[in-house]
């Protein structure tokens, strides 16, 4: 019951915030980019398949770049509102269990990432339909791969749980935007170097995109989802024990 009450309050706090607007802006950028990437091609080979190339391209860019940055921004924003005027002291003086507060913050970040990923799926389908109409020379445009899109969107989201948990903890633990953003930008930037390394298989910020890589799929999904739960529990325990000075 407490968790539902806290979630209910968290939803109201999102009103008029950038956190809410960003779940539309980020996927729109990726879908637009993918649309123009295909639209600008001069000719297509006979085996070009729009509904393989477009969703995979959009979800890959989403997983390697935009989703980690979105998670960084969303967690910094939804937890930053509590640091701004030292709201933690007000919240903890209310009859609300601290673990419910932490869990609600984490669930909101997960829900925003899920909603934004779903919006990307919808925009990708719209982009594909528009391309099929605008480029009459596109071959293989009939069978829309809804199942593949939704399945891989879910995999990307599950593999991102670990970075959602890490960023939730960082942005709750330390006030100020700089550290939270620095951790996210740094994590995403080093993913470029980690991608080609053998250990890149275990690098948290690469887990979402690793679901598309053969031989890395199972590790990405298991480490992302299970690691996310473990990191969330550790973060929650630290949060519950902390003094509010």
């Amino acid at each position, binding site marked *: *019951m407490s968790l539902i*009450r*806290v979630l*209910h*309050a968290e939803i*109201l*706090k999102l*009103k*008029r*915030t950038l956190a809410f607007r960003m779940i539309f802006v980020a996927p729109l950028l990726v879908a637009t980019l993918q649309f123009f990437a295909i639209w600008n091609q001069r000719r297509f080979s006979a085996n070009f398949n729009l509904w393989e190339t477009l969703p995979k391209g959009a979800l890959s860019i989403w997983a390697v770049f935009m989703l980690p940055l979105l998670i960084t921004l969303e967690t910094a924003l939804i937890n930053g*509102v509590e640091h*701004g*005027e*030292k*709201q*933690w*002291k*007000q*919240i*903890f*003086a*209310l*009859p*609300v*269990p601290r673990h419910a507060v932490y869990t609600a913050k984490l669930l909101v970040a997960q829900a925003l990432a899920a909603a934004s990923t779903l919006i990307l799926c919808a925009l990708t389908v719209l982009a594909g339909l528009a391309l099929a109409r605008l480029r009459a020379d596109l071959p293989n445009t009939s069978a829309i791969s809804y199942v593949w899109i939704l399945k891989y969107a879910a995999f990307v989201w599950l593999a991102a749980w670990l970075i959602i948990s890490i960023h939730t903890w960082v942005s709750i633990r330390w006030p100020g935007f700089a550290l939270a953003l620095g951790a996210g930008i740094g994590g995403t930037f080093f993913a470029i170097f980690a991608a080609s390394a053998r250990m890149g298989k275990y690098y948290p910020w690469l887990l979402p995109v690793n679901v598309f890589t053969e031989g890395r799929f199972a590790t990405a999904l298991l480490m992302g989802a299970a690691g996310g739960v473990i990191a969330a529990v550790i973060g929650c325990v630290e949060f519950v024990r902390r*003094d*509010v*000075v």
Partner: protein
Amino acid sequence: MQKHAIETRGLTRRFGAQLAVDDLNLLAPEAGVYGFLGPNGAGKTTTIRMLLGLIRPDAGEVRLFGAPLAAGHLSLMRMVGALVETPSLYPHLTGRENLEVARRLLGAPRKLIDDALGIVKLAQDADRRVREYSMGMRQRLGLALALLNKPRLLVLDEPTNGLDPAGIHEMRDLIRHLPAEFGATVFLSSHLLSEVEQIASHIGIIHQGRLLFQGTLAELQAQRREHLIIGANQPERAMRCLTAAGWGARRRDDGLLTVSAATRDAAARINSLLVNQGLEVFHIAMAQASLEDIFLTLTNGRSEARRAA
């Protein structure tokens, strides 16, 4: 037997090597206003944070309405409303939405929002965003948040900080009426005795983490002693002469001296002493110590004792 809203036993908290609160035994009776008084850095906010369970004591315990806080934090916090230092508000939401966030967290009925807005006289501005609020309006909204759940105990940490004189007057009026109108106990911290003495029925004076006085306002007033106020042309030299002659003297901000003596004979002897030393005495009068003097005597005495130790 008198019931207590707040009772602390041996409450102690350190921050590194610094002892912020030292063996504190508070007793705040129910349905009164308890003024928790002390200079800045005395340990008031640390004490309040322990009363609310925001930080844990190193030793001792807090009891609210007779029940230990450590065992039943959540159920006890249902009876408590708090405003710690500056109000914690969401500037992008309206005043009403800020109260709605707290209402959802409390699981309280929606009607309480209008009640709280009415008490703090903020109903007209409730639908404006908080970022447009003045300091006084923010402070009143902070009080509305604390009052939202109709608490039995209201803990207010320096509630008039940053307010202009009109805002202070308004806030003081609001707080004064809370025990009578709502049966709530108010625990109010301040570094200004003049503020507390106008509202509080009971007073606790804390300095360097220790409780120096605790009792009713009347008990504190009973500690007033008569003393002499002396004006001399060289106050520093006059003070040295008086101290050398065994009179306890203290220099006031206005340049006059306060001497712990209260008889006509003492006044005459002090006058001759100073005149014989070549000083010109232009003022000599008997006066009763103000509460401010008692407060300063208590807190200065403690500081000097610490330095001597």
